[in-house]
C-alpha cells in the first residue's frame, strides 16, 4: 500500500513560471512597515555578527599576539597553512564531527520517542510531561557539565559505585583518563541536555500532521509502523530537517562540556576549544582567528548541505507555508 501525500501549495503562492508579482499599494506599505519594524534589529544583528566576522577575517591574515601589540606582521594565508597542515586541527575536526554525528543521531531517535509520547499523552498529563522533559534544557550547560563531571569523577562520583555490576565499570575506572570513556560522558551529557530541544521541535512538526491523513491510512488498514513511516514522517520532513540542522550546528560548536570535563585532555579537543585555546589561552589572535574562520566555514558548509541538498525549508517548518 502506498499512501503518498502531496504537499499542497500554500495559498496565494503563484505556481508555474516564477515571476515578480505586481504588488498593490497596500502590499508595498506593509513591506515598508515590515522593514521599519525589522530594520533596527537587522542593523544591530549586522553590527554584532558581521563586524566581528570581518574583523576575525582581517586578523587571521596577521601574526598577532595580544601581549606583543607592536610585533604585528602580515602573513597572508600563512596562518591558514599552519592550521591546515597541523595534525592537531584535523584530529579536533574529527572529534567534533564524531560528537556531532553521534549526539544528533541519538537525540533524533530519543527526541522522536519523547515527541510521540508528549503528542499522544493524556491531555491532563500533557503540561506536566512537557515541563518535566524540558527541565534538562533549562539548565545552564556549564552547570550540567559540572554535574555530569562530578557524577563520573573517580573521587566524588557515584556512577562507579552504582554501576559496578556492569562489566568494565569498577571503582577504579577513571572515566576522564581515556579518550573513549571521556567522549562517552561528554556525549551523554550533551544528549541528556539537548534532547528536549529536538523533541519540542519535532512535537511542533507532529502537531502539523493532519489527523485526517492518519485516520484515512488507518481505515485503509495501515499498520502503526506504516502510518509512522509513510504518513507522519513524510509530512513532518521539514520539521525533522530543521531540528537536525539546528542541533548539528549546535553540536558542531560544542565547547562547555569538553572545557569543564577534560579541557581537551586525552584527544578530546574539539574545534571551538582549539580556537579558544589559541585566541584566549595563547593570546595568538591571528592564528586563533584563522581557526575561528575555518570553524565558521564548516558551519556554513553544514547549513549549505542541509538547505541545498536536503532542501530544508525553514519557513514551512514554522508552519508559514500552510
Amino acid at each position: 500500500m502506498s499512501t503518498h501525500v502531496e504537499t499542497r501549495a500554500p495559498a496565494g503562492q503563484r505556481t508555474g513560471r516564477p515571476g515578480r508579482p505586481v504588488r498593490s499599494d497596500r502590499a508595498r506599505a506593509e513591506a515598508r512597515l515590515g522593514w521599519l519594524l525589522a530594520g533596527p534589529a537587522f542593523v544591530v544583528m549586522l553590527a554584532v555578527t558581521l563586524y566581528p566576522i570581518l574583523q576575525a577575517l582581517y586578523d587571521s591574515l596577521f601574526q598577532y599576539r595580544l601581549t606583543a601589540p607592536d610585533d604585528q606582521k602580515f602573513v597572508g594565508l600563512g596562518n591558514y597553512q599552519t592550521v591546515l597542515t597541523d595534525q592537531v586541527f584535523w584530529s579536533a575536526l574529527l572529534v567534533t564531527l564524531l560528537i556531532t554525528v553521534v549526539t544528533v543521531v541519538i537525540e533524533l531517535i530519543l527526541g522522536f520517542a519523547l515527541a510521540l509520547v508528549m503528542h499522544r499523552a493524556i491531555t491532563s498529563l500533557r503540561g506536566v510531561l512537557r515541563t518535566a522533559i524540558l527541565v534538562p534544557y533549562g539548565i545552564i550547560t556549564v552547570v550540567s557539565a559540572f554535574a555530569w563531571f562530578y557524577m563520573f569523577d573517580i573521587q566524588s562520583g557515584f556512577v562507579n559505585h552504582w554501576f559496578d555490576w556492569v562489566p568494565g565499570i569498577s571503582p577504579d575506572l577513571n572515566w576522564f583518563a581515556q579518550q573513549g570513556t571521556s567522549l562517552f560522558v561528554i556525549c551523554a551529557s550533551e544528549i541528556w541536555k539537548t534532547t528536549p530541544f529536538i523533541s519540542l521541535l519535532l512535537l511542533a512538526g507532529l502537531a502539523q500532521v493532519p489527523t485526517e491523513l492518519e485516520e484515512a491510512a488507518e481505515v485503509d488498514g495501515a499498520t502503526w509502523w506504516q502510518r509512522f513511516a509513510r504518513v507522519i514522517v513524510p509530512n513532518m520532513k521539514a520539521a525533522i530537517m530543521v531540528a537536525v540542522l539546528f542541533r548539528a550546528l549546535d553540536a558542531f560548536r560544542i565547547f562547555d562540556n569538553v572545557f569543564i570535563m577534560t579541557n581537551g585532555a586525552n584527544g578530546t579537543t574539539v574545534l571551538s576549544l582549539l580556537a579558544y585555546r589559541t585566541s584566549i589561552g595563547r593570546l595568538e589572535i591571528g592564528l586563533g582567528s584563522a581557526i575561528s574562520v575555518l570553524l565558521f566555514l564548516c558551519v556554513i558548509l553544514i547549513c549549505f548541505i542541509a538547505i541545498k541538498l536536503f532542501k530544508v525549508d525553514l519557513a514551512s517548518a514554522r508552519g508559514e507555508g500552510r
Partner: protein
Amino acid sequence: MRRRALTAAIGLALLAPLAACSGESGPPTLTWYINPDDGGQAEIAQRCTEAADGAYRIATEVLPRDAASQREQLARRLAAKDSSIDIMSLDPPFIPELAEPGFLAPVPDDVAQAVSADVVQGALDASTWKDKLVAVPFWANTQLLWYRKSVAEAAGLDPSEGVTWQQIIDAAKDQDKLLGVQGAKAESLTVWVNALVESAGGHIVENPEASADEVKLGLDSEAGKKAADIIGQIGRDGTGGAGLPTADENASMVTFQGDRGSFMVNWPFVWSATNAGVEAGTLPKDLVDDIGWAIYPSVEEGEDARPPYGGISLGVGAFSNYVDQAYEAAQCIVGVDNQAFYMATNGNPASNTKAYDDPQVKEAFPMADVIRQSLEQAAPRPQTPYYNEVSTGLQETWHPPASVNPDTTPKESSEFITAVLRGEALL
C-alpha cells in the same frame, strides 16, 4: 503637558547617574584583583583602607579560580588598557609576559628597596624581569613532602633526613599504598615536571629572556630523562592510583588522607585543610598525628632537591589612574603583620622571613621552619614571556603520566614546544 513632564522625568532619570559620577569626591578607590582565597585578602584590603586614613580605599575583585584563567583575564584587560586594574595578585610564572609589553607600572626605586628587605630569594627572583623588580612579593609558596609516619616507619625511612623519589616509590609499592602527586593535565603537572628537572640539575628553558623563535629548551637532557623516568614509573606501576591522570592538588590531598595514603608532594594549604576536616568530623582524629613533613624529595641521593615555587606577587597596572597610591597600598598589603596574618589564617606562607617569627604563625604552622628552608631552596618555573606555551606544551606531551617515556618524551616535548614557539604548530 503630561507628555512634557514625562520627557523631563526620563531626562532626569538618565542624567542623574551622570551627575553622580561627575560629583564623585573623596579618596580614590583602588581595585585589587585577587585570586580566590579564604577571605584573607579582603580582610587585608580592609585593614589597609583603615591604615590609609582616607588617602585611598581598596576594593577587591575576585579573579577566576585557576592560575591560567586568572592570567587570561588580566592579560586581555591589560591589552585593552583597562584603567580599572590598580593592583593585581599575580602568579609568578606569568609576570614576565605582563612585564615585557609594559603592562605593569614600573616599581619606583624606593618602593623596590623597601619591599625587598628580608624577603626570600625565590620570591625576589620570581618578581624580577630583566634584572628589575617588576612586582611586589606578597606571599611565597613551596611544596613539601608530606608523609604518613606509619608508612615511613614501616619502610624504615626518615624523611626529615632527606629521601629520594625512588625511595618513596619503592616504599609505597611495597606496602600497596598510593603516592599523592599531581598528574592532571593542568598547571600542577608543569610544577611537578619543573621541580624534577631542576632537582636533577637541569632547566626546562635554558635562555628565558630570548625571543620566541630563539628560546632554547633543556628538556632533551639527562635531567629531562630522569624526570620522565620518575613520572612514567609512577604512572605505569599504579603507585599514583587510578585517579592519577586527573589528580590535581586537592585530589592528591584526598588520596593522601585516605586509607592508602603514604607520601605526597603538595603545598602547605593541605595542613590547614586537613585540620579543618578533622575539626568538621569528616576526617579521623588520629590522622593529624600520623602526618609528617619534610623537604621535597630529591632525584639523586645526596643532592638537594629544588622544590616548586609558587605564591603571589602584587603587580600595579600600567594604565591605572592611581599608580602612586597603588604602590603605597601594595606596600601596606605586604607588611609583615599582614603576611603573618595571612599565613596563620589562610595557610599561605609569607615571603618575608620576619613573618615566620610571629607566634600566631608558629602555632598554626609547626612546619614553618621547613617551609622557610624549602623557599630558600626552591626553583621558580621558567621565567619567560612565553611561559603559557611552554607550560601547555609540556602538559600536552607529558600527559597522561603513564605515557611518559624517558627515551622519547623529553625529546618530543622539546621539539613540539619549539615548533609552537616558532608558530609552526598548534597547541
